[in-house]
Every structure is written in structure tokens, then in C-alpha cells.
């Protein structure tokens, strides 16, 4: 490896045709990202046949550009309407939507796009210089390590809700229950389908999220007569520059989010847990955790940095090992084979022009992408100036189309409406939605990894402690599980000591 390879790649990626392809791809991808349900994987799959007449490098640039666009675009509806366009932007709604309601939609979007860009570049640089080494590390991650990571994600969220722990528990168990519907991969049997064909594919995460967050929020707004205050915000074209002045303050969150995203992104389904974990850690380490969930800009920086960093890292196992790190990468991998390339460890040696063209296009694609979406920030923010009575029906229709697009199935639109009611009831009764969503998206992955591990160890839990990487991550997870129990005790002890020393202390 060396700079001449990267240079060769840039020559490929910067050809006028490939730049044109990238711009088209990002524009399409952003639209795909905005439409909830029509995710990156679907978008790439639909456009895949169009690429058969292109040279492979242009083809992969088109597909990856769609992917970058979807990563950027996922944040738009999260911030503006509380509807995550993509699974990994669920955590972005926690603070993005409150900001938009306070008339700071432009700032929230700028923060989201900028964070995405930073996260992406972090991962691209790592891939450029360390891809083969990182691929070797990725190989060390078997089912036990994967389960340990899932455990860490759960544990980082424990005790964060701040509300009633029993309600969080109910929410998380409800999520696990929904996640277990469908095919059990370990036994190959159907579970909880009660003979209904429509239940066989289980509950799609994105359909649930559109319902719980989007439709639920609309029901709530209708009842409370809540109005967006976006109109007051005005169309400030300087919003991007103004927000950039604040962002460097959160450099720690940027670095942490990038790292979390990169390490989680290796494995399938990595971007979503990464965004949750990054949010949880940002809140944990923040000096003002109470501001999170009410419109804290750091609560946008954390998940977006991690999600985009993970989204890029998902490409690493694809180009180095021939396994997809995300559903979108799985479709691209199919593309490689159809273009006549053999994905896997030999790709670097046999097709340097393709691999380095792809890596160089990650740099150019993300620069083009962030410029395009940032230029549109005032426009996106202006959408909120549309009267609520007109906007709401449009949102409902977009939600329904999105839910339908996931599987081309009408039943998903009904599921979405049911989840909307569930989301409304949960909010009314003050049950937190985040644990439910987390359990739904990770439940299936965590269960498979746990059972695969236990099959490998013939039933012994020791497998999570005897393998070095798994042991470290499991220990970390246990630490975070115990932390909320220990902290009050620690605080009272320290508090008592402090009071003794300085009576005025608190």
C-alpha cells in the first residue's frame, strides 16, 4: 500500500463522468434517505440493474453515493418531523426534534450533517491506511465477541432514562417480544406467528419506528394543538456558519462517536447500535445530562458522528473479506459478482484500480454530499414554515408510503398505524420509547449471537470470559450495568465526606 495507490484512485474518482455519477447518486440517495422505509438497501437494489452497462468503478461509485446520500438524508426527517428516515437516525430524533420545535431546525440539521461528515472522514482515513490490519482484527470477532458488543450497547443505556426503571423494563421486554416474532434461525422454526403468513417475516424495525415516533408524535400534536415554532426561525442563510462556531466545543463527542462508530460498523447492523451507544456515552459524560432530550446539540452530534462512521466502516469487511457489514453492503456485494469481480481478500491485489477508486470516491463522495445537503439547510428548515394543518397530512402520507416501501406490503401500513397508537399510549403514560426500539433492533442480533456462542461452547457461559476480546468487552458491559447501582452509593459517600469538609458544598 502507499500513496501512489490512493493517487491512482483519485485519478479514477475525479474523472468528470465519475463526479457526475457521484452527484446524481447523492441526490437520489438523499431522497431515499428522506423517505422513511425506502432505505439505502432498497434504493441500491432498485438501481443495481442500471449499473450493468457501466464500468465497475463507476457502478460502485453510483451505488456508494446513493448510500452516502441516504446516510445524510436520514437525519432530515428525524430532525424536522421526529420520523427517522433510517434506523440509525432514531437517536437523532431525541434532541433534533426538540430543537426544531424550538425554531432551531437549521442549527440541528447543520450539526447533523457536519457530524456525519466528520464521522465518515474518520473512518475513511482509517480504511485508507489500515484496511488489511483492520480486516485481520475484524476476523477475530466471532459470535461471542459480537454478543459482548450487543451487551455493551444495552448496558450503556441502562439507567440513562432517568424515569421509572420499571417502565423502562416493560418497554425493553415489549421490544424483545416483538423482536422474537418470525423465524428462529437457530432451530429453523417459526415463533409467535399463530399461523398468520403476515407475521412470518416478523416486525420490521423501520415500520415500527415510523409508527412509534412519527405517527405517535402526530397523534400527540393533534391532541395538544401543538404548533411548530419553525416560522419564527426565519430563513437565515448564515445558520450554517453560526452553528460551525459552536461545534468545535464538542470535539470530545466527535472523537468518541467516530471511534464507537468505526468499531461497531464492522459487523452487520452496526450503525444503529453505534448511534445509540454514542448518544448514551455522550449523555453519561456530559456536564449537563439533564439537557439531553430537550434540544441539546451534543445529542445530535453524538449519534450522527457514530452512524456515519459506522456506515463507512461497513464497507471495510465488504472490500477486504467479501462479507457485507450492512444490508446495503450486501446488495453491493451482489453487484460486484454481477460486474464480474470476485469480492474477498484478493480484490485489493487483483483489482487495485477498482478498490482504490472506491476508497478515493469515499472522500470525494462525502465532500460533495456534505456540500449539497448543507446548501439545502435553509430550504429544509423552511419546510417547517408550512402550516401544521397542511404539513401533517403530507407527513402521514409519506409515512404510509415509507412503511409500504419496506416490503411492498399493505400490512406494514396497518402495522405502522398500530405502532402509532402504541407510541401515543406510551408517551401518554410516560413509558420511554427508546428501550423498546433498542430491544427491537438488537434483540434478534443479540439472541442469535448468544445462542451461536452457547452452541460453540456446549452451553458454557465461560466462552464470554475466556476469549480475550470478548472478555474485555463483557467486563466493560458488566461495569456499565453495575454503575447505576453503585453511583448513588458513591455519591452519598463522597457527598458526606464533602459536607464534612466544607459545610456549604452540595
Amino acid at each position, binding site marked *: 500500500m502507499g500513496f501512489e495507490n490512493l493517487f491512482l484512485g483519485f485519478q479514477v474518482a475525479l474523472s468528470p463522468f465519475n463526479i457526475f455519477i457521484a452527484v446524481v447518486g447523492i441526490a437520489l440517495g438523499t431522497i431515499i434517505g428522506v423517505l422513511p422505509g425506502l432505505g439505502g*438497501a432498497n434504493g441500491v*437494489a*432498485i438501481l*443495481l*440493474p*442500471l449499473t*450493468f*452497462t457501466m464500468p465497475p468503478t463507476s457502478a460502485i461509485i453510483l451505488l456508494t453515493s446513493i448510500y452516502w446520500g441516504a446516510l445524510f438524508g436520514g437525519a432530515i426527517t428525524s430532525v424536522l418531523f421526529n420520523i427517522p428516515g433510517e434506523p440509525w437516525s432514531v437517536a437523532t430524533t431525541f434532541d433534533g426534534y426538540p430543537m426544531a420545535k424550538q425554531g432551531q431546525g437549521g442549527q440541528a440539521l447543520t450539526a447533523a450533517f457536519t457530524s456525519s461528515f466528520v464521522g465518515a472522514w474518520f473512518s475513511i482515513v482509517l480504511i485508507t491506511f489500515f484496511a488489511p490490519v483492520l480486516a485481520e482484527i475484524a*476476523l*477475530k*470477532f*466471532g*459470535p461471542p465477541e459480537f454478543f459482548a458488543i450487543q451487551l455493551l450497547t444495552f448496558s450503556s443505556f441502562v439507567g440513562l432514562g432517568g424515569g421509572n426503571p420499571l417502565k423502562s423494563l416493560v418497554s425493553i421486554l415489549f421490544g424483545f417480544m416483538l423482536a422474537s416474532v*418470525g*423465524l*428462529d*434461525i*437457530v*432451530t*429453523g*422454526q*417459526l415463533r409467535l*406467528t399463530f399461523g398468520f*403468513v403476515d407475521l*412470518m*417475516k*416478523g416486525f420490521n424495525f423501520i415500520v415500527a419506528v415510523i409508527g412509534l415516533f412519527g405517527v405517535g408524535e402526530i397523534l400527540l400534536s393533534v391532541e395538544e394543538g401543538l404548533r411548530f415554532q419553525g416560522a419564527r426561525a426565519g430563513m437565515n442563510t448564515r445558520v450554517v456558519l453560526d452553528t460551525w462556531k459552536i461545534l468545535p466545543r464538542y470535539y470530545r463527542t466527535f472523537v468518541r462517536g467516530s471511534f464507537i462508530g468505526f468499531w461497531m460498523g464492522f459487523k*452487520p447492523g452496526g450503525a444503529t447500535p453505534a448511534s445509540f451507544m454514542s448518544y448514551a456515552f455522550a449523555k453519561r459524560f456530559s456536564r449537563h445530562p439533564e439537557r439531553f432530550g430537550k434540544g441539546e446539540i451534543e445529542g445530535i452530534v453524538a449519534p450522527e458522528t457514530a452512524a456515519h462512521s459506522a456506515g463507512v466502516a461497513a464497507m471495510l*469487511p465488504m472490500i477486504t*473479506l*467479501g*462479507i*457485507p457489514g450492512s*444490508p446495503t453492503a*450486501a*446488495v453491493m*456485494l*451482489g453487484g460486484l*459478482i*454481477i460486474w*464480474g469481480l*470476485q*469480492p*474477498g*481478500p*484478493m*480484490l485489493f491485489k487483483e483489482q487495485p484500480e477498482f478498490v482504490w477508486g472506491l476508497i478515493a470516491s469515499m472522500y470525494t463522495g462525502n465532500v460533495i454530499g456534505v456540500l449539497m445537503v448543507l446548501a439545502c439547510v435553509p430550504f429544509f428548515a423552511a419546510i417547517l414554515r408550512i402550516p401544521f394543518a397542511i404539513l401533517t397530512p403530507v407527513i402521514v402520507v409519506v409515512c404510509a408510503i415509507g412503511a409500504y416501501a419496506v*416490503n*411492498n406490503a399493505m400490512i406494514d401500513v396497518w402495522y405502522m398505524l398500530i405502532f402509532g397508537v402504541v407510541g401515543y399510549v406510551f408517551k401518554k403514560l410516560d413509558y420511554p420509547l427508546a428501550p423498546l426500539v433498542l430491544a427491537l433492533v438488537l434483540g434478534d442480533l443479540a439472541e*442469535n449471537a448468544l445462542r*451461536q456462542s452457547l*452452541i*460453540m461452547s*456446549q452451553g458454557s457461559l465461560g466462552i464470554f470470559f475466556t476469549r480475550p476480546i470478548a472478555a474485555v468487552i463483557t467486563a466493560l458491559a458488566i461495569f456499565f450495568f453495575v454503575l447505576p447501582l453503585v453511583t448513588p452509593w458513591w455519591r452519598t459517600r463522597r457527598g458526606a465526606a464533602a459536607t464534612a469538609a466544607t459545610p456549604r458544598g452540595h
Partner: protein
Amino acid sequence: MNVLVALVSILFLVTPAAAAWEPTKPIEFVVPAGTGGGADQMARLIHGIAEKHKLSPRPIVVVNKSGGAGAEGFLHVKGKKGDAHTIIITLSNLFTTPLHTGVPFNWKDLTPVARLALDQFILWVNAETPYKTAKEYAAAVKEKSGQFKMGGTGSAQEDQIITIQLEQALGVKFTYVPFKGGGEVCVNLVGKHVDSTVNNPIECASHWKAGRVRPLAVFDTGRIPEPDWKDIPTVKDALGADISYNMLRGIFGPPDMPKEAVEWYVAFLKKVYDTPEFKEYLSKGALKPAFATGAEYVKWVEGAEQLHKDLMTKGGLLKK
């Protein structure tokens, strides 16, 4: 996009009543598996070839219906009785899913259109292990029966069926670890999380070239004739065990699909099959070219169904 396609097709509905049948609206191409897998790849390749060479007057829309190990897709097509604009690509789950889960469908519910190819299976071990031949590996497994981990795709599907056949032929026991997809299985072998796999050739080809995995035997009656693969012995030569298993890559239509429509699809698939792109795909993936239609195809499927019934009964994988 679908709406647009539908509108366009309405505009063109006034086609002259020609003698031969042709699709008059978009063709729904169902894949009873997830995106990115072998069946999905082949469906999208057929879609791409059809677009590139303009082989179909109407567009093809590939739809994944992977729920319940493919049952969702099969039941969807089963419910479209007499429809001429829906086809489905099948893999072994055409047989294994109804046998194992009891979901009510059978290939006899569907209209056979054409068999395109057969996929091979190979016994792989990590290249850093000392086992140079299948015999050495079998001896090691025998010594520590039950300690060796065999990785495979899904449960009670082709990989586990082959594993059970191997166990019964050798009188040994493996610990079978199910994964979600074939690519993931091979990477777990490279990462030494499992001891062996029965991956399809294409799933492990690149890791083999990189020197990370080693093929020991082909589960077929003859060697793979491709130059890269022809040195791998058959299981019969290597172990004396007569195990052969091929996976179907074929196309079916809904129940009672009109005869003229079946004829059109057969001709269409033959054209696709004869393109250099499709030939190259088969050769790269070491898939057995096996175009067959009509009675020949039905006879093969009947045989395959009986084989799966026998194997799954012997392996204790039938729905209880």
C-alpha cells in the same frame, strides 16, 4: 416507481392481438430469500441481462419475500392462481421449509418453468489446520467426536442436511452452528470460530485464493470441470462415502399459469441463459449449467423432493 411503471403499461395496453403471448404489465420476480444471497444475486442478474439485451417488453421488478425461511414468498406466489406476471426463483428451501416448519405449500402447487443451474457444495477447513485431505480431517473428528464445529447457513436447510449425511456416513458427530448467510459462514471459518464448513464454491472462492481456507472434497458424483476447481476430489474418492447434493436454482410460476405464458418465460430464460454474462457468472461461481424445462425439469424436482424427504427423515429434521 411501481405506480409510474403501471401508468406507462396502461398507455401501451393497446397492443395488437399477436399470436404469441407477451407480458402486458411489469413482471414481479419473487426472491424467497434476503437481499445479497445467491438466489437474490441470480434474480438481479437475470433482471440486469434482460434490461441490457432488451429481452422483455415489460420491466421486471425483483421483490424479496424472505419471511419464514422463504415461506412468505412461496405462499405469496401460491395465492396468485392463474397469474401470468409473477415468477419465483427457488433454492432448496422449496423442499426444506415446508418439511421442517409445516407451512402448507409444495412445489406441486406451483407451475415449473425452467431449471437454470445447480449449485455445488464443498467441505472446507481453515488453511492453517494440519488436515490436507478429507481422510485426515475425518480421522481427527472421529477421535474427538462432538468437539468439532461445523458452520452452516440456517437450520434444517441444505448445509445441515449435508452435515448430517456426513455424520451418518462417517459415524461421527459435529456441533452444528447456524449462521445467517453463506459469506458470514466462510468468514467465521477464516477467523477460526468454526472448524469446517460446507460452503458453496463462490462463497469461499476468494478466501481460498488468498490462502486462508482449504477445500477437501466436493459433495457430488463428479469433480467440478472448471480449471480452478478440478483438482478437488469427490467425497466418494476422498472418503469412500457416497454423498452427493446439488442445490436447485430454478424458476417457477403461480398455480395454473397459462400455458402460453409458460412458453414465453421458457424462451425468455433460455435467451438469458445463452448470454455471455450468464455463462460467465456460472463459470465464476462454479455453478453447474443445467438448463431444463418441461417433463425433464418436473422429473428432476420429483427426485429432489424425495431425496429431501429421505434425508430429513433420517436426520430427524421433519416437523413433529
